[in-house]
């Protein structure tokens, strides 16, 4: 058993490149889906019926679809429409589009809890449109939704493992490769599980620190 883990250690370059790829996918899709989610949220709550209905339909469809199905849809479906992508980009786009819907839904929930007076006083001070959104509405919403955003980012980590089926070189994919070369499944996958755990602990620590910072600033 120790020997198996020594083999993994000998392959650390591959393991690290897999981990790095997972982290890059995670960071870029977390940021992109947060930004897009923040833009989608006002559409969900729009007073114009068609916009609100379209945005709600998108969010509901994403919330019903399993991530793997959506990955296949992007990976096999887009080329049918004449858009061909590399595996990595197909995976990243699937992660972003899928999680945008969840982020938008989280932010909408936080928006509903926001006191109306805050927005009204913002308007009274002459903020409007995008500035109102950026300066007055979004900051408290982000703070309120922070723990849930943290959970969703952990969900992105877990979703990224699905990308192994379309041969994106993330952690699980690298580990499957090592496992099938050296026949050390236990060591390979336990290492993967522990590395995922470390990533998630880092995310939890990160959101916790941000939360604390925000509370100190508010106080």
């Amino acid at each position, binding site marked *: 058993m120790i020997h198996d883990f020594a083999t993994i250690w000998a392959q650390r370059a591959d393991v690290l490149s897999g981990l790095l790829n997972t982290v890059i996918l995670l960071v870029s899709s977390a940021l992109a889906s947060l930004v897009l989610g923040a833009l989608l949220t006002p559409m969900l709550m729009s007073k114009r019926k068609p916009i609100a209905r379209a945005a709600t339909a998108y969010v509901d469809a994403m919330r*019903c679809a399993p991530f793997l199905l959506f990955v296949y849809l992007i990976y096999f479906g887009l080329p049918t429409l004449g858009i061909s992508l590399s595996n990595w980009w197909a995976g990243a786009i699937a992660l972003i589009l899928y999680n945008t819907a969840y982020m938008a839904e989280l932010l909408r929930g936080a928006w509903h809890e926001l006191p109306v007076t805050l927005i009204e006083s913002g308007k009274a001070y002459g903020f409007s449109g995008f500035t109102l959104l950026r300066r007055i509405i979004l900051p408290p919403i982000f703070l309120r939704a922070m723990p849930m955003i943290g959970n969703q980012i952990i969900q992105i980590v877990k979703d990224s*493992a699905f990308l192994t089926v379309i041969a994106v070189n993330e952690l699980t994919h690298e580990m*499957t490769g090592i496992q099938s070369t050296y026949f050390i499944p236990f060591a390979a996958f336990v290492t993967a599980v522990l590395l995922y755990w470390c990533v*998630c*602990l880092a995310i939890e620590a990160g959101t916790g620190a941000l939360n604390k910072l925000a509370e100190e600033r508010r106080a």
Partner: protein
Amino acid sequence: MTAFDYWSITRGALSTISLSLASIVLGVPLGLALALIRWARVPVLDRAVYSYVSIVRSCPTVTLTLLIFFALPQFGLSLDPVPAAIVALTISTSAFNCEVWRSALIEFPRDQYDAALSFAMPRLTRMRRIVLPQVWRASLPGLVNEMTLQIKSTPAVAVIGIVEITRAALRVGSNTYEPLPPFVFALVLYGVIVYVLLRVQRSIESRMRHGEARQGEAA
């Protein structure tokens, strides 16, 4: 797509449903047991459950499935794909269910428990008559939410060759060279399953409310 293609995806739906049902039936009580261990602060087990939940919650279902299917034979315990899938899904859902049950147990009013103690109720009756009915009511939405997530994570077991909705759709797509229609049909099937679950939750909740109202009238 021919009628046979539709039929094969629908058969995939049967295996998705039976796998999720099996893991839910095993995972919900297991989660309750884990939550009770943490609630009762059983000395060493308490820490063990804490680590278990923390690791499993951050572990992608794909990686967990691969770990169980490929690594257990190393210890002389080889499982067929279906039992391996059920074990993997149960492990992952039990960790999430544990958190749902535990938050309901934390919310449980202490004075009721003390009242039951002062009536000299034996431990089992105390759990069965006082604690569980209320905790069950409080956890139901969280549990159903976790069930829908569970259904959406069943495609993960396709990596060990189980044909469920997503994989069946993929097969049909690669036979007909038209990936979009089978994926859209698969999406509809998932939508139907999740919708039925939500309806069941609503009806159970309304029945509970009726029950409470009737008890109120009697008192």
